[in-house]
């Protein structure tokens, strides 16, 4: 969900960034078409959690889910960040 009084408008920029990140992940990991990749920007209210993170879930068919985190807002994630996170 979202902050009080601020509606969650998923802007075209966010969609574009999300699609770009998915494409990079698929290429870097040579994923098959039926693998699922999701990209989420998580802003948690828990005081123990960090601020804004981009969380990528890689779900190849028949294999466990891999969770990759990048300490940056979704719009700021670059190819270098994903390469480093996937190492």
């Amino acid at each position: 969900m979202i902050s009080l009084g601020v509606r969650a408008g998923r802007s075209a920029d966010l969609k574009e960034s999300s699609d770009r990140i998915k494409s990079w992940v698929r290429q870097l990991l040579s994923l098959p078409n039926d693998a699922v990749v999701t990209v989420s920007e998580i802003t948690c209210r828990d005081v123990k959690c960090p601020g804004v993170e981009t969380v990528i879930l890689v779900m190849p068919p028949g294999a466990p889910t891999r969770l990759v985190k990048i300490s940056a807002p979704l719009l700021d994630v670059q190819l270098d960040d994903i390469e480093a996170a996937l190492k």
Partner: protein
Amino acid sequence: MTTQSTIPVTVLTGFLGAGKTTLLNRVLSESHGKRYAVIVNEFGEIGIDNDLVVNSDEEIFEMNNGCICCTVRGDLIRIIEGLMRRRGQFDGILVETTGLADPAPVAQTFFVDDDVRKNTRLDAIVTVVDAKHLADALEDAHEAQAQIAFADIVVLNKTDLVEPAALDAVHRRIRAINPVATVREAERCNVPLTEVLDRNAFSLERILEVEPEFLESLHEHEHDDHVTSLSLVSNEPLDPNAFLPWIQDVVQTLGADILRMKGIIAFRGDPDRFVVQSVHMLLDGDHQRAWKENEARTSRLVFIGRNLPKELLRAGFEKSVASEALPS
């Protein structure tokens, strides 16, 4: 939170033997004009051969560092992504959980994962309970209390197996845990499907859609239940500058124990109702429609959770009451 293009998802919870599978088979077999993709734990329990029935193995993981509100069901993310490739073949999704499942990760999956949120909307959490065995289930497992606490709709099944006095006690027990759920009695899960499907219960438009007189006469219940509720009411307008920071702080600091919260708030000098809801630390709130001319501008806030610090919450709420009216 919702758009018309998103697929409604109904989450079906309830203890083993309560009647979930009966309800599920009805959704799959009756002619109600809609097709549902159904995500189940065990194929064997479903008596209908249907290519829209998908088996899942519960995969719970944390999107963040052990925070309860970022705990999601990975298997649902996978399956929903797969179902979206078959979009157009079904009108809604029904997710069956195991008897002992904690509903929180299931619900949170629909708010935390951006891709799931983009394609679907959580329509309602429906909990089926067995009128005869509910008291035992509540004693034996905290999950049963959590399932009632999270429910938007409680199907109180097998009412034919209990005497009226016992049924009345079951109603009171459910109300003590969750005063805002809609409770529908049923025998062999014969509740009209229109009362459990396509309810839009998480829409801010439909928060607290229970009888106003019930909320107004709501009294505190004293039970030994692990999960309890607290209802706060004010006939005086609240100060948004006090209420909004307070409710965000409450959700942030107590969200692990607050399973659900719902409220309709009348702010001082504000012609519109402000509605608010949360699932653990996931908070949503916005202005809704204008108060009607003859409508009492009463603020109501309901917390459902474990170990609720009731006096602390009550004191915070009372501090949010506007100290003086705006000059007219």
